[in-house]
């Protein structure tokens, strides 16, 4: 189709000026966008409030969709589970997988018990859930992997809290609104979780690769002890995630660790649990100590 004649400005001065103004405005807009982009890459948290307001407004629609998803799980499984080939016996496979995760978690618990007995006097923090929420959306067309859950500040959710599902860790809360929260999924390229092998104390960092898998980087470099099939659980280092939540299973060995498959596929998850930050007491004590010192001075 030919473009409309309004673009052929000929010698009409006013029309020429209009076209020129359009270009100037669009150019200025692009520059404005570039400036915002630089700001948000340097300080990613700058525009969070704005985003959360928008998310709060749109979340009821997402929630309605999530309710519908429960009924038609298989359709969306087929769409979203693009990477899972041969899903004929997916149901059985899933059950076997959960059993394997449980086994690995039990093994991890046994180890944890032994270690705790060795270090008497430290009681584990209370891990009763803060809230139960639906996973109502994710940035499914962007490389960043950010999800939305249907619980926010009003339900007691705070930034940093871990999000888990029955099959393992999903991510952590990035930002809270009144009724919804943004969640940094484990597969996001900015996400990093301290993990250890469930059978021993091989510690590593799990980084997201934004394609449904994680990259495990060993902390102690040397001979790579990881074998395909090894299950990794959170190590509790850093105080954010409690220990022994299943994270990933190693699939392919690399030079400094492994590529691991995520255990809790968010696509198959309906309800998630928001857990409290594991070592909240310690961080609170530290901050109150600091406040006390400041008051003494």
């Amino acid at each position, binding site marked *: *189709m*030919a*473009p*409309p004649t309004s*673009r052929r400005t000929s010698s009409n001065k006013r029309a020429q000026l209009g076209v020129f103004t*359009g*270009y100037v*405005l*669009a150019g200025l*807009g*692009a520059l404005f*966008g*570039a*400036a*915002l*982009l*630089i*700001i948000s*890459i340097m300080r990613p948290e*700058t*525009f969070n409030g704005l*985003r959360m307001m*928008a*998310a709060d407004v*749109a*979340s009821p*629609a*997402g929630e309605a*969709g999530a309710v*519908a*998803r429960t009924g038609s799980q298989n359709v*969306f499984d087929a*769409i*979203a589970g*693009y*990477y899972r080939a041969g899903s004929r016996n997916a149901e059985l496979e899933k059950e076997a997988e959960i059993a394997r995760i449980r086994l690995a978690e039990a093994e991890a618990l046994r180890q944890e018990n032994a270690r705790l007995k060795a270090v008497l006097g430290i009681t584990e923090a209370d891990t009763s859930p803060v809230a139960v929420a639906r996973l*109502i*959306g*994710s*940035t*499914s*067309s*962007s*490389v*960043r*992997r*950010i999800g*939305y859950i249907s619980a926010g500040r009003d339900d007691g959710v705070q930034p940093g809290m871990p999000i888990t599902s029955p099959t393992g860790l999903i991510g952590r809360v990035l930002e809270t609104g009144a009724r919804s929260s943004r969640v940094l*999924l484990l*597969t996001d*390229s900015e996400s990093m979780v301290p993990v250890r092998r469930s059978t021993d104390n091989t510690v590593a960092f799990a980084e997201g*690769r*934004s*394609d*449904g898998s994680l990259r495990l980087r060993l902390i102690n470099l040397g001979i790579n002890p990881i074998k395909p099939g090894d299950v990794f659980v959170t190590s509790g280092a850093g105080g954010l995630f409690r220990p022994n939540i299943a994270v990933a299973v190693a699939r392919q060995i690399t030079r400094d660790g492994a590529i691991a498959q*995520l255990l809790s*596929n*968010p*696509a198959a*998850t309906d309800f998630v649990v928001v857990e409290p930050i594991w070592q909240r007491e310690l961080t609170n004590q530290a901050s109150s100590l600091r406040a006390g010192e400041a008051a003494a001075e």
Partner: protein
Amino acid sequence: MMETLHPNARRDPFGSRINRAQSPLLAYGLPWASILLGSLTPWLPIISPAPVLPPLGLMMILAWRLVRPGLLPLWAGVPLGFFDDLFSGQPMGSGILLFSLILIGIELIEIRFPWRSFWFDWLTASGIVAIYLVVAGLLSGLGLSLDRLQILVPQLLLSIMLFPFVARLVAHLDRLRLMRVRRIS
């Protein structure tokens, strides 16, 4: 009298020509509303571990711009990009920058190739979506290695295959846009 001879004598595809006029709100608002709706894909109940859905907001812009040239102003990338950034998960500003550049780019393509066919539009849209996905990926922290860029391939193929459908949808919306719904006395 006319109606008894020919029932559609005083009608055109957009409705009765007597006593009815197009609504400016519908005629100018529908393109914007449909693009904004396309930007809301993150609220679809699809939780994917990898990027799979096409950037529907961008594809709606492309379709409106290519199917009905001259409707979107050249600066439309700024507000539409801002809205897209609110939900897409990209760093704020990437949508504003890329959408603006894309609209300027289409303008230049149109000056260079004034007469275009559907196939050429499809090619244009595919090229633009491919560039957009790669640049948006780089802006949000995807490494520049071949291995990393592979995760964009399914999304890109889906986008290219989906463009004719989006263009057809926009063509239908374009007819809806010009319906004579306003009663004038």
